[in-house]
């Protein structure tokens, strides 16, 4: 889908409004394939019942034009901004916020945003520091990529951080990831994507774990040491027997993705961020002329 707009701020707002609803309704093909593959190899009776229902639900959402899951989540956006893109990030943020509000009111979507102390609703999926936007700035480029990852609370509540020490080694990372997913049980709506962030600092490790869940399923880290760990954890996690919705079975996770950063010589942080089976994501590429190109698979 492509279009050209003269008002670049309006183009970003319109794109954001479309992106949020679209992400909630039309899950990516790699996820659809992974769910069908999981359905095919699950042998437990309750586990198979769960996967049959999931696959049927995706079809019903398509047929009825409805949301896959009622939890419209917290709207999280990742922006890659080219240094020559003609709209300042301050204005990009305003446009994303306005687009989130419009999508929520016009559809309408359930509004989840509350003040963290009073628990009173703060607006149409917006509030102080909501939506959440992560930024990356790209040299020698004039475009903007926005990825929307509406993340539900069931899976976000299953986030874990451990400041392992260097003496814990890679073994400590593996043990922590495995224990976390067993502790989470059925709560984060398995089978989903286990995002792991290693290295950096405490805050950065969790950010990396969130980045990891937003990758297309089964893509591997560019660093062969990390890619090997992804494969190993993926196999081990599916041996835990937690199964679909925690009812027991062969398929506990659809995959395991890891993002890493170099770290301090005395640090070995490991963060786990779970993404549910309804691993929603959608992207748009915005050109310097306001042209938009939506991309379900990025």
């Amino acid at each position: 889908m492509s279009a050209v707009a003269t008002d670049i701020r309006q183009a970003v707002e319109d794109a954001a409004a479309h992106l949020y609803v679209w992400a909630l309704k039309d899950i990516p093909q790699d996820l659809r394939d992974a769910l069908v593959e999981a359905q095919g190899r699950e042998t437990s009776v309750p586990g198979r019942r769960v996967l049959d229902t999931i696959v049927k639900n995706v079809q019903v959402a398509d047929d009825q034009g409805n949301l896959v899951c009622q939890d419209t989540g917290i709207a999280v956006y990742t922006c890659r901004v080219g240094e020559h893109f003609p709209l300042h990030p301050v204005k990009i943020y305003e446009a994303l916020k306005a687009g989130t509000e419009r999508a929520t009111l016009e559809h309408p979507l359930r509004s989840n945003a509350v003040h963290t102390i009073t628990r009173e609703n703060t607006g149409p999926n917006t509030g102080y520091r909501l939506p959440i936007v992560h930024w990356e700035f790209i040299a020698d480029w004039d475009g903007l990529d926005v990825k929307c990852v509406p993340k539900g609370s069931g899976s976000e509540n299953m986030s874990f951080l451990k400041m392992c020490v260097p003496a814990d080694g890679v073994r400590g990372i593996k043990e922590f990831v495995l224990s976390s997913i067993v502790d989470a049980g059925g709560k984060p709506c398995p089978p989903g994507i286990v995002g792991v962030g290693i290295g950096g600092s405490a805050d950065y490790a969790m950010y990396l774990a969130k980045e990891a869940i937003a990758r297309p399923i089964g893509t591997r880290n560019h660093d062969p040491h990390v890619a090997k760990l992804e494969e190993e954890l993926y196999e081990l996690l599916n041996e835990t027997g937690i199964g679909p919705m925690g009812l027991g079975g062969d398929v506990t996770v659809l995959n395991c993705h890891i993002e890493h950063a170099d770290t301090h010589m005395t640090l070995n942080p490991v963060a786990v961020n779970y993404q549910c089976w309804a691993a929603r994501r959608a992207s748009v590429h915005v050109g310097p002329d306001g042209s938009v190109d939506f991309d379900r698979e990025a």
Partner: protein
Amino acid sequence: MATHEVTFPITDEAEILKLRAGDEVVVQGHIIGIRDRTQIRIFDQGVEPPMDLKGAFLLHTAPGVRKLEDGKYEPVCIGTTTSARMVRFTEPLGAQFGVRAICGKGGFPDEAIEPMQRLRMVYFAIVGGAAALETTQIEEIEEVAWEELMPECLWKFRVKDFGPLTVGIDAHGNSLYHDVQTAATKKLEELFARL
């Protein structure tokens, strides 16, 4: 593992006692939507719920709805939330109000097993996130109380072929979640030994 059809609210507790952990269940009749803030109001703030919960099936939900001109609500997208946050309300729901079934996703921890056995209650596992399908099984939103808690109101839904659900905890002291966690914890020891 048997398959059952049960109509709620129930009047005969045999309907609950015939269900065994792992069984498949499809529900007809009326179910009541309830969530964190609804139960905090009932039990922590001591406000009597304006709906009869005797023999009821409770669903852990905060529906997405559209308000119509006549004041009624129509479903937009209705799904189910994580139950574990609300486990402490299980005993008083059964003892004070006669609730017979609680349905949610992700299961209850072991502290729910004893009161569910004593009070003849069951926990039904729904497929979390499968809201598009669940919405088609809700025929009508018949009543809404405590609208100021939107969307965490008290909702009365009429349903048709609601499910398939899995009996996660039965009224005989069995819990699939307990069994899966016990086996997984044992398996972890084996996996750690291989690392």
